[in-house]
């Protein structure tokens, strides 16, 4: 398949694997898995899913990974066994079950061999997942099911009941049920009753979801534990009206769950452009104090979507900040300022709207222009000029804190801090030199 077609396909799959309907995301995960077998970009997209901050998306990643199993058994096996090992410290029963399900994609006896090994694991969460996975293969050594049925852990025995529900009745399963019948726990006896078909399984009602609007979106930003359904609905709401959506997200960045929501949203976003923007935001918001590498890191994130016209105003802003932050002396600051003014004038002549757009707040380029103006007025390295630049920078900084929203403010702060440090160092050496 030509590269451009693969990229277009991946763009569509990025959206589809994040859709709410299983009819859409399941086939999309299958296609992603197939593409990832011999396409590096697709493999990267699959890894993004597997490493997502949202468990539901990691689960979908496993569905896609399962497709890769027959073609790349070694890589898939390594990945899955690493995830099982991780469960000892970060236990998520649903993800672990999905991981064991993915063992079925491994060729030959590899899957059952790994599962029977995990039945002896010291951690009962892993043994339970292995027990629940027994139904995926028909032939187990005689006596194994009964042995699992007598496991001291209730969770493991409950896992086995889940497997028995799916298995064809045989002498082996009957023996296991008999052993399980001797369990003293009432909860387990209830499960057994259901297994024996003596009581119909619970009816499940499909509930209609309540409406989702501005108020719900705002509320979500204050929630510390948003779930995937809520994030999905927020993503739909933001995409519907990007201008209001992004503006609400900006307002909510200081809220309790603001950063977490933006991080989840960057994973859940069906549009790769919005995902890239939110990934950049998320990186800015999670920066440690005084992280000067941040400007380059954010530029690197935006470079992952170089053709996006939606991102271009924010990208240009970040590039300009990165160049300004790279100045090592006042003469370089002046050069940056003049270059910025010339470049901006040429860009404005070409397309006055090139640097406008909802991906960047309107205040941020204005501050950058003001900084460029200030820098270009700095003519000689005199005590007067240095002091006046220093005062100008302090005033701009105070203005920035008042008027510029996050996350752009964070980037401008880095530049202003750096420039102020440089000016103060030069001022000190100037004063030192004068007095000497």
């Amino acid at each position: 398949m030509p590269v451009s077609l693969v990229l277009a396909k991946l763009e569509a799959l990025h959206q589809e694997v994040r859709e709410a309907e299983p009819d859409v995301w399941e086939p999309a995960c299958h296609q992603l898995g197939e593409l990832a077998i011999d396409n590096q970009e697709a493999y990267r997209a699959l890894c993004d899913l597997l490493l997502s901050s949202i468990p539901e998306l990691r689960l979908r990643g496993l569905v896609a990974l399962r497709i890769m199993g027959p073609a790349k058994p070694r890589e898939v096996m390594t990945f899955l066994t690493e995830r099982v090992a991780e469960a000892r410290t970060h236990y998520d029963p649903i993800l672990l079950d999905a991981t064991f399900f993915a063992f079925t994609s491994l060729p030959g006896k590899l899957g059952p061999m790994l599962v029977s090994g995990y039945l002896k694991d010291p951690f009962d969460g892993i043994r339970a997942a292995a027990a629940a996975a027994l139904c995926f293969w028909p032939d187990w050594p005689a006596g194994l099911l009964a042995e699992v049925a007598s496991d001291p852990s209730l969770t493991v025995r409950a896992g086995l009941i889940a497997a028995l529900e799916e298995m064809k009745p045989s002498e082996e399963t009957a023996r296991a049920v008999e052993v399980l019948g001797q369990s003293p726990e009432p909860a387990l006896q209830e499960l057994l009753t259901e297994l024996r078909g003596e009581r119909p399984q619970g009816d499940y009602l499909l509930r209609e979801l309540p409406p989702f609007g501005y108020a719900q979106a705002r509320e979500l930003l204050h929630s510390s534990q948003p779930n995937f359904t809520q994030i999905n609905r927020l993503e739909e709401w933001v995409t519907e009206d990007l201008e209001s959506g992004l503006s609400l997200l900006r307002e909510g960045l200081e809220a309790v769950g603001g950063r977490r929501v933006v991080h989840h949203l960057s994973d859940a976003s069906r549009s790769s452009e919005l995902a890239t923007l939110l990934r950049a935001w998320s990186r800015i918001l999670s920066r440690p104090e005084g992280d000067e590498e941040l400007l380059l890191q954010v530029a690197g994130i935006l470079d992952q979507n170089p053709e996006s016209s939606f991102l271009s105003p924010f990208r240009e802003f970040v590039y300009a900040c990165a160049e300004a932050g790279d100045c090592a002396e006042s003469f370089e600051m002046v050069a940056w300022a003049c270059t910025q003014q010339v470049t901006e004038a040429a860009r404005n002549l070409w397309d006055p709207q090139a640097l406008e757009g909802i991906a960047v707040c309107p205040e941020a380029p204005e501050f950058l222009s003001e900084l460029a103006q200030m820098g270009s007025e700095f003519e000689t390295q005199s005590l007067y000029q240095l002091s006046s630049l220093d005062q100008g920078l302090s005033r701009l900084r105070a203005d920035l804190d008042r008027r510029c929203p996050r996350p752009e403010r964070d980037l401008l702060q880095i530049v202003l801090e750096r420039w102020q440090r440089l000016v103060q160092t030069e001022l000190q050496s100037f004063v030192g030199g004068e007095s000497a």
Partner: protein
Amino acid sequence: MLPKANKKDEEQPNFASFSTTLRGVLTGSVDSRTLERYQDTLVPQLEDNRKRLKSMPIPASARTVLRPVLAKTEALYEKLAAALDLVEDFLHDGTRECLEEAISLLDVVGDQIGHGV
């Protein structure tokens, strides 16, 4: 693909959309009145920008560093001026080659602006 902005203002003539307009003139989908509107807007805009670039105060300390940037920008403005002259010629005598040449000049400038001046 996401839009750059939700509320789009009415499109004003600008150099970025000029080559598309010229292509439209060649195919007959854009009339000469639109083309004249472009000329009337862009000629004074370019003139104004060139004047400002020439009179821009540049501190002595930055002059050497800025020389290549200024030269490059001036060269871009030259190309834009040449494109406008060619369109003017087309408006007078209707030679298609003039428009084709103007389009290729604008494409070159567009590429350069897109990758930083």
